C-alpha cells in the first residue's frame, strides 16, 4: 500500500511573529528543520504557516492541564466526602452518597457534559441562570471543570470507601478508645491510611481525568485535542497534528505517574502493600 502524504512537521513550529522577540533565531531554527528554502517558516511569509499552530498546541496543552487539575481538586475533595459518607452509620447519608455514585458513574461522560452545558443553566433560578449564560467568563471551561470533577468524584468516592473499609475496625476502636471523636478518627487515622493505600487507583483516575478532558471539546473548550483537530483542518497535516497530541498526552501521563510514584514512596506506610491500580 502506498500513501500519498506530504509530511511537514514544520507547521507545528509556526508562531506569531509579534509573539517572538527573538524572531530571527526562531526562523533559523524552523528553517533548519523544515523544507528547503526555509521561507515558509513565519506567520506572514508562507502558506504553510497561515496560523500560529505552535501557539495553538501550547495553549491547548495549557488548557488541558488547567481543566484537568482544577477538575481533580473537585474530584479529590468531593470524592472524599462522598466516599466517607458511604462508610458512616447514618443510613440517610449513606443513601444519598450511594445515589450520587450510581448516577454519576453510570451516565456517559459526554451526556453529562451536554447536560451541564445546555440543560443545567435552564434549570437554575432565573438570576443564576442568566448569570451563568451571560456574565460568567469562559462558561464552557467552568462547565467542563465541574462536569469532569463530579464525574470522576464518583470513582474516587468508591476508592476512598474501599480504602476505608479495608482498614480493620480495631483501628477505629483504638482511636475512639483514646478519646478521639469519630470525625477525628477519620481525619487522623482512616483517611490518611486509606489515601496511602489507594494511591495507585487514584493515579490512574488522575490520568483518566486528563484523557477525559478531551470530551470538553464538544462544548467548545479549546484544549489539546480540539487544537490538534483545528490544526488538522487548517493544514491537512492530520498525522502531525494528532501525533503531537498523542505524544503530549503520553508525556503528561508519564509526568503524572512519575510524580505519584515519588509521592507514594514518600508517604508509604512501612510494611504495607498498596491496592492495585484499576
Amino acid at each position, binding site marked *: 500500500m502506498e500513501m500519498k502524504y506530504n509530511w511537514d512537521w514544520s507547521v507545528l513550529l509556526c508562531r506569531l511573529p509579534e509573539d517572538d522577540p527573538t524572531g530571527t533565531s526562531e526562523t533559523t531554527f524552523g528553517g533548519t528543520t523544515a523544507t528547503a528554502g526555509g521561507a515558509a517558516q513565519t506567520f506572514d511569509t508562507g502558506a504553510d504557516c497561515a496560523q500560529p499552530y505552535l501557539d495553538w498546541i501550547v495553549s491547548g496543552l495549557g488548557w488541558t492541564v488547567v481543566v484537568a487539575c482544577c477538575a481533580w481538586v473537585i474530584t479529590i475533595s468531593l470524592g472524599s466526602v462522598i466516599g466517607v459518607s458511604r462508610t458512616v452509620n447514618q443510613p440517610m447519608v449513606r443513601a444519598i452518597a450511594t445515589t450520587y455514585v450510581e448516577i454519576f458513574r453510570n451516565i456517559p461522560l459526554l451526556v453529562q457534559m451536554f447536560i451541564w452545558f445546555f440543560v443545567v443553566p435552564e434549570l437554575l433560578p432565573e438570576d443564576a441562570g442568566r448569570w451563568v449564560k451571560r456574565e460568567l467568563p469562559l462558561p464552557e471551561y467552568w462547565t467542563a471543570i465541574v462536569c469532569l470533577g463530579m464525574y470522576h468524584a464518583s470513582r474516587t468516592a468508591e476508592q476512598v470507601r474501599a480504602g476505608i473499609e479495608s482498614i480493620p475496625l*480495631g483501628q477505629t*476502636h*483504638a482511636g475512639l*478508645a*483514646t478519646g478521639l471523636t469519630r470525625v*477525628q478518627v477519620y481525619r487522623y487515622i482512616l483517611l490518611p*491510611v486509606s489515601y496511602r493505600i489507594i494511591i495507585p487507583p487514584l493515579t490512574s483516575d488522575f490520568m483518566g481525568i486528563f484523557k477525559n478532558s478531551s470530551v470538553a471539546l464538544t462544548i467548545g473548550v479549546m484544549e489539546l485535542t480540539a487544537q490538534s483537530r483545528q490544526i488538522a483542518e487548517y493544514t491537512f497535516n492530520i498525522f502531525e497534528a494528532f501525533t503531537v497530541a498523542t505524544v503530549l498526552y503520553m508525556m503528561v501521563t508519564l509526568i503524572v505517574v512519575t510524580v505519584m510514584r515519588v509521592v507514594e514512596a514518600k508517604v508509604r506506610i512501612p510494611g504495607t502493600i498498596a491496592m492495585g491500580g484499576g
Partner: protein
Amino acid sequence: MIEVENVSKWFGDFQVLDDCSTQVDKGQVVVVCGPSGSGKSTLVKCVNGLEPFQEGIITVNGVSVGAEDTNLPKLRSQIGMVFQNFELFPHMTVLENICLSQMKVLKREKDEAEERGMKLLDRVDLIDQAAKHPAHLSGGQAQRVAIARALAMDPIAMLFDEPTSALDPEMINEVLDVMVTLAQEGMTMMVITHEMGFAKQVADRVVFMDEGRIEDDAGKDEFFGEPRGGRARLFLSKILTH
C-alpha cells in the same frame, strides 16, 4: 470505679450478654476469662462505650456510659484500652502514636506530649524505638507501645482485651511485666486474659464468663483455691495444662 449492673446486649437476635453484673473498685485488678465467643470482648467494649448495650447500667467513675448525654469521647479518654492486635496507627511513628490523642484530645502542646511520650517509652523500655514505624516492631514491643499510648492519656482505669494472646511465647512476659508493675502501682484494671499466672500474681478477683453470662465472680484465692463447679473447672483445667 467500674460498675456493671444487669447488662444485656443483643446482636440482632443473638444475645451476646445476658444479665451481666460485676464491678471493679478503685485500684483493683479484675481478670476476665472464659471460652472463645463467651462475650468477654463485648463486655469490655461496653464499658467504654465502643459497643452499645440494650439493657442495664454501666457507670465509670460515677458517669453512666449508656446515658444519652454522656460525653463519650471525654469518658473514653479517661479509660485506657489495650487490644489483642495492638492497633497502633501504621502511618505514624511510635512517638506520634503516643502523642496524637494527647494533642488532639487533651490539647497538650507538642513538646509537652513528646516529653510525656518519651517518659512512657522509657518506662516500657522502648526509648530507642521512638522514631520507628509500628511495622518495624516485634509484637511484644508493639504491645508495650500500645500500653504507653493508653497511659499517655493519664487514665483512671485500664482495659485489656487479651493483650498477650497474639504474641509469640517468648514475648508474653515482657508485656505481662509491664502490666504487673502497673497493677502494683495501684492502677484500676479490667483484664481479659488466659494467663492464669498473671491472675494469681496480681488479680483481686477473677470473673468467668460463658455464653454471655457471668458464671463465676470470686476473689482470687477463692477462685483458684476451691474446686470450681461445672464449666469453670473444665475451662480452668484446659487452660492450666497449657
